[in-house]
């Protein structure tokens, strides 16, 4: 097993240099605030009287999370180490920068480490008198049955939940309402992924799991957490059908319903492949009479150089649709040009 090659310097410099590069590349959108150096803040986001939207999590999922920072989306992101939750101190830096006096909403994927670290930060904020709420994104249908939805992991559906909350905050909604809309988006969003190949942590350089040359893992998580089964690698159409079936059987959209779609690449899967998945997805939704209201195809929540993809659907009503359409401008996504 040979070391995976990466364009990095010393492993311990990865995150500081990543943040330096992001801010240098997008000085019109991003800046860094706070003593930890781990809070990436929107130049044009936080403002008096607006609810602060703070996202975050481990690194290695770029553009998640700092790529979603910018006007109309997140006000700040707390940037953890590779695949590790940011610490409370780092989250506090982000929250303080995002706080405009109307309270702060913390949004992140539902992982034990993130839940604990964000909760510690929330306790600290609350103790200091800042109104604070949290929503854990839990869109991965493969990670727990529907009866235990609260245990599910958050994967690419993060983006839809962040987008809805970011739009609501940008429109001046109060904290309770922004939180409620984020929960509504989370409830309406289901995802499932497939992995074809591993990634390696820069510090170890070794693949984080083994997978056979002709195998894929259906439902694998963003850190290589095993999914629901290993199958022989199947044609793209069949993989799409499998992922969609899991999502649609739970979501059960009716003929005429509208959905937003995200076909997300995990790292080394090409746009060619993602669009081939989308072509099939469109056929399946057409056949069921479901309308695609908006779609995104590309890398939105990655797992370093992992090979594979995920499909996310968010079932829309007029309110969610309008919030998706609300303009935003971030390094990763621009809406309403």
């Amino acid at each position, binding site marked *: 097993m040979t070391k995976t090659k990466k364009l990095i310097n010393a492993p311990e410099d990865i995150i500081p240099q990543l943040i330096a590069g992001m801010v240098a590349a997008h000085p019109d959108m991003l800046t860094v605030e706070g003593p930890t150096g781990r809070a990436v803040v929107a130049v044009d986001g936080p403002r008096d009287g607006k609810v602060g939207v703070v996202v975050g999590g481990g690194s290695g999922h770029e553009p998640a999370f700092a790529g979603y920072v910018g006007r109309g989306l997140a006000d700040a992101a707390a940037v953890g180490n590779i695949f590790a939750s940011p*610490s409370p101190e780092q989250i506090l830096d982000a929250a303080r920068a995002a706080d405009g006096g109307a309270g702060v909403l913390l949004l992140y994927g539902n992982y034990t480490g993130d839940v604990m670290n964000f909760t510690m930060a929330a306790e600290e904020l609350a103790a200091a008198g800042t109104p604070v709420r949290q929503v854990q994104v839990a869109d991965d249908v493969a990670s727990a049955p529907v009866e235990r939805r609260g245990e599910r992991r958050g994967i690419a559906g993060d983006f839809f939940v962040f987008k809805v909350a970011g739009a609501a905050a940008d429109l001046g909604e109060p904290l309770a309402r922004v939180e409620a809309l984020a929960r509504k988006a989370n409830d309406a969003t289901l995802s499932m992924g497939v992995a074809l190949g591993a990634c390696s942590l820069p510090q170890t350089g070794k693949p984080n799991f083994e997978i056979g040359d002709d195998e894929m893992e259906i439902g694998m998580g963003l850190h290589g957490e095993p999914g629901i089964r290993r199958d022989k690698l199947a044609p793209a159409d069949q993989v799409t059908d499998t992922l969609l079936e899991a999502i649609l059987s739970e979501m059960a959209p009716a003929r005429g319903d509208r959905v937003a779609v995200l076909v997300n690449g995990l790292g080394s899967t090409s746009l060619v492949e993602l669009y081939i998945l989308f072509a099939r997805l469109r056929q399946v939704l057409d056949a069921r009479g479901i309308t695609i209201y908006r779609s995104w195809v590309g890398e939105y929540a990655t797992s370093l150089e992992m090979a594979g993809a995920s499909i996310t659907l968010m079932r829309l009503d007029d309110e969610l649709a309008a919030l998706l359409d609300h303009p935003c401008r971030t390094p990763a996504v621009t809406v309403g040009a």
Partner: protein
Amino acid sequence: MITMDRTGFKAALVAAAEAVVASKDVLTRADQAIGDGDHGIGMARGFRAFADALAKLDDAGASACLQAGGKALMMTGGGASGAIFGTFYTASGNALEAEAEPDPTALAAAFAAGLQAVKDRGRAKAGDKTMIDAAEPAIAALAQQQGALPAALEAMAAAARSGMEATRDMVATTGKARALGERSLGHPDPGAMTFTIFCEALARGLR
């Protein structure tokens, strides 16, 4: 009752933290087997900060050492383990009388408070295949000890190790290993390994 001098306990804590740092690769491989492979990295970083924080304390008792180490670990470790281990040491230190030299009973009571804080924080329980499965029997064993602290800590470390070994037969129900379900069988829990390594080195450091 036999107690420890301050510098001896502080030095032993530093040595124990260094032992975890030195076990980075073993812990990484353990987390690769059932989790996301970052446990060794996070713990090496966190216990490095733990040791460094203690080095900065001049004349500190056990309580202050555990508080400072735990806080440093919590702030730098990141991930589940940064929060869990940071909470454990911080809460243990908070429960220890400020200027007291720890004896087995006092230390067992402090660690028990630390463990309770871990459970409150992470909502895991014994049998969930976490560091709790090493810590709980280890603290119970320490609480039974009446004699010298070194021997008491050796008994604690032995109980931690058998608790850690027992996690092989458990199915993970929490954290990044949870999704593995049955497939986590046969592998020990990485956090339980960290706890065991720490206890063993602490005992060695006081011999």
